């Protein structure tokens, strides 16, 4: 008895995505930079010899040239190779630490919000108590008390992840709290769904933008923290982590000696990575928070 509803043409997901990106220029730019960096790293890993990222593998102190597009450093590293490997390692730490932090945060956030009661109080209180503690300084304490031989890319990631879960926990918890009050959860219960199905099938998918934003935020924090530790000389020294390269250049007086490319390249890469992550994070925030989301 209803007349045909006028079929409004709904653009495909991709078109909408692209259109959204056009509006959310920050997100687009961030994603673009990240893609470019990924491309650089992936192609780089295929093309360059990772061995050249380590000392004495190339002539010394050469400014950028055709043969060595990014130059070489005091120790005879081919900086192109070093940047490729360093970028890869930085990404690895970032993704690992960010992943762990987010995962723990999501698990705790869900547990806390969904089950409530003393579990919630405990987790929430723990988060609130830990939040004011300057995380980076604690990470410094941890890294500083480790035996240097134990400091690797992976321990770095763990150190960074260790105190990174409070943020996501609180964000996810808050979201689940509001989400579980939403009526579709009640309806799911009425439809006979169990607690776990509700968490995973009803609530989780809706939190994806938040989780993604939290993840990007975590990756940012992790990259920043690992960089910070490395610049303080607390990283795995032999590895060409971007922070380590800057640290090494600093301690060899690179600027004064006129080897400007040595510290500037990793600095520039770091700025790109962190800037892009910041942009993406901001964009995702916007996506997750419909009030901020702009429409045309």
């Amino acid at each position: 008895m209803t007349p045909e509803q006028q079929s409004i043409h709904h653009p495909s997901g991709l078109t909408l995505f692209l259109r959204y990106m056009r509006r959310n220029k920050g997100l687009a730019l961030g994603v673009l930079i990240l893609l470019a960096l990924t491309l650089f790293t992936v192609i780089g890993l295929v093309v360059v010899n990772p061995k050249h990222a380590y000392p004495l593998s190339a002539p010394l102190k050469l400014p950028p040239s055709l043969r060595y597009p990014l130059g070489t450093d005091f120790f005879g590293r081919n900086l192109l190779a070093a940047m490729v490997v360093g970028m890869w390692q930085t990404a690895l730490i970032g993704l690992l630490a960010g992943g762990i932090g987010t995962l723990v945060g999501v698990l705790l956030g869900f547990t806390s919000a969904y089950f409530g009661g003393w579990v919630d109080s405990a987790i929430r209180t723990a988060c609130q108590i830990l939040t004011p503690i300057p995380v980076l300084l604690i990470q410094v304490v941890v890294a500083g008390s480790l035996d240097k031989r134990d400091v690797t890319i992976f321990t770095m990631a763990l150190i960074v992840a260790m105190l990174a879960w409070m943020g996501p926990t609180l964000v996810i918890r808050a979201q689940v709290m509001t989400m579980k009050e939403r009526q579709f959860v009640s309806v799911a219960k009425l439809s006979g769904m169990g607690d776990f199905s509700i968490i995973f099938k009803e609530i989780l998918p809706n939190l994806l933008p938040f989780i993604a934003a939290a993840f990007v935020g975590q990756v940012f924090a992790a990259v920043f923290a690992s960089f910070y530790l490395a610049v303080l000389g607390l990283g795995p020294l032999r590895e060409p982590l971007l922070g380590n390269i800057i640290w090494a250049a600093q301690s060899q007086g690179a600027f004064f000696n006129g080897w400007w490319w040595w510290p500037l390249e990793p600095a520039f890469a770091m700025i790109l990575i962190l800037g892009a992550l910041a942009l993406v994070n901001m964009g995702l925030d916007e996506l997750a928070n419909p009030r901020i989301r702009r429409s045309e």
Partner: protein
Amino acid sequence: QEAAAPVAATEIVPTSLPDVPRNQTAVLAWGVAGGSSIGTTNPWVLPGYTHQEGNNLMWEPLMYFGIYKNEFIPWLADSMEYTNDDFTALEIKLNPEAEWSDGTAVTSADVAYTFEGQIKYETLPYHTQFADLVDSVTTPDELTVQVTFKEPAPRFKFEVLTEKFDTGIPIVPKGYLSEQADPTTAPGRDEIPHSGPYDIVAWNTNQKILDLREDWWAVKAGRIALPAVKRVVVVNILNQPIDTVAQRIVNNEFDSSVDMRAQIIGNILQQNPEVQSWTGTESPYGYLDWWPNSLWMNDSLAPYDDVRVRKAISLAINRDLINEVLYEDAKIATIYPFPLYPNLQTFADSAEVKAEEAKYEPGKYDVEQSAALMQDAGFTMNGDGLWEKDGETFDATIQAFESIHGDIAPVLAEMLRQAGFDANVNFGTDAYQNMVDGKAGLYMFGHGASLFDPFEALNLFHGKYSSTIGSSAGNNRFSRYSNPEYDALLDGIASLDSKDPAFVSGAAQALGMYWRDVIDVPIIQWLHRIPYNNHYWTNWPSATNVGLGTNGAFWAHTGMLVIAGLEPSGAQ
């Protein structure tokens, strides 16, 4: 006994400070990380006191030693002689003009008090030497001190009583210290009477200001002319990047600074022609320190207990490459565990030593031979190109210090890695501890021993110091090498004078054993490359202007002589 609670030092804030123009001020960049406690001027407050960073301008020893002239420089003492042949008695005659800043004379009582303090207080640096060797200290009159030893102590005068580089003791005022509740904790500040030419007038975390004391006794005594430098400002550059410090020297902000890496000092000289180094504007810019560095190995820790492995490591070191990469082709790499000061150079050039060198080829670089040795020792090369045994590579992490080995350690590690050793660098604060405990296998460290003859350097490897792993290796004797044959050789030459031909041939033999057994792998001579800015001050020490013959570091015990010798350039 329970140590009394130390009194914390505090800033010294001047009530008013006379204006001293820049051209009468020497500005020194002080970059000793960690710093001393501010306000601690009492040499007995340890830990806390350091003679570096300007305190050396306040304190004086009995004698200094001019290493480049190879002679003692009498200071508070006019003479200091062993009075018998077996080196068990020593007499010190003080200069009658010597005077504390409060106007009282420096007397034998002060010297005796200084010596007895070393015996009494465990925390003082020469406690062991005094407690083990000194039998009695007597003061027949105001200017004479007599010391008798429990056993022959031929090196006591030089090693302990004379100040050179960073060793030796200053004489402290009995009058002031004996009135303190605990002379090892009273900070001293600007109150403690001292005999040196400068008074501390201001001291905080940023800087330390010392002003000239015009009534300095040494001028009256004719030891030296009144210094032209009216004020010394020691600026704390803390952990400022080395670039900044270099640039500030170029900008004539600093007159001198801590030593620098070869590259940087080269650039400083280029950018500011007024700045000079020890060797003028020529590489290697620095003067020879007494601290040649080796790649030490823990000779009792597997697999470093296998001489084949040690030799293989030695063969993997390319000394030419080190010179090229790090030192602009200056000949810094070495094969000796001692600095080539005049006397030691003569020893190294002796026929006996040359013969040993030809036999063991200590400086040889040969990766293939190295590989052959490793295979012989039961190692195989794994897929990563690293030597392994029983499926595992062995830990070849080099323990080193970032501030001084930041350039060489990574290069060494990489050389080892290229020869198949699983090498890495540890610049951690635990690096030194790992050397002391012997838990690690490889360390970058110096031999702070011989200055005059090779005995002290060779003595570092005497079996009696070879402590077991886990217990600490005393006095930087890290090799844990033990060989009765070697010990016997050393014991045989211990009491001989260094000019004695028997000493030379014995020492050459021991050096041969050192090379044969690759006790450690000598890497580089240690240079101090200090920039000297002639803009305001001239007459800096250099290879062509050795002055009294002391080294040119303003922070060494002899730094006072460097500052006191400066002449104004006339610049405004």
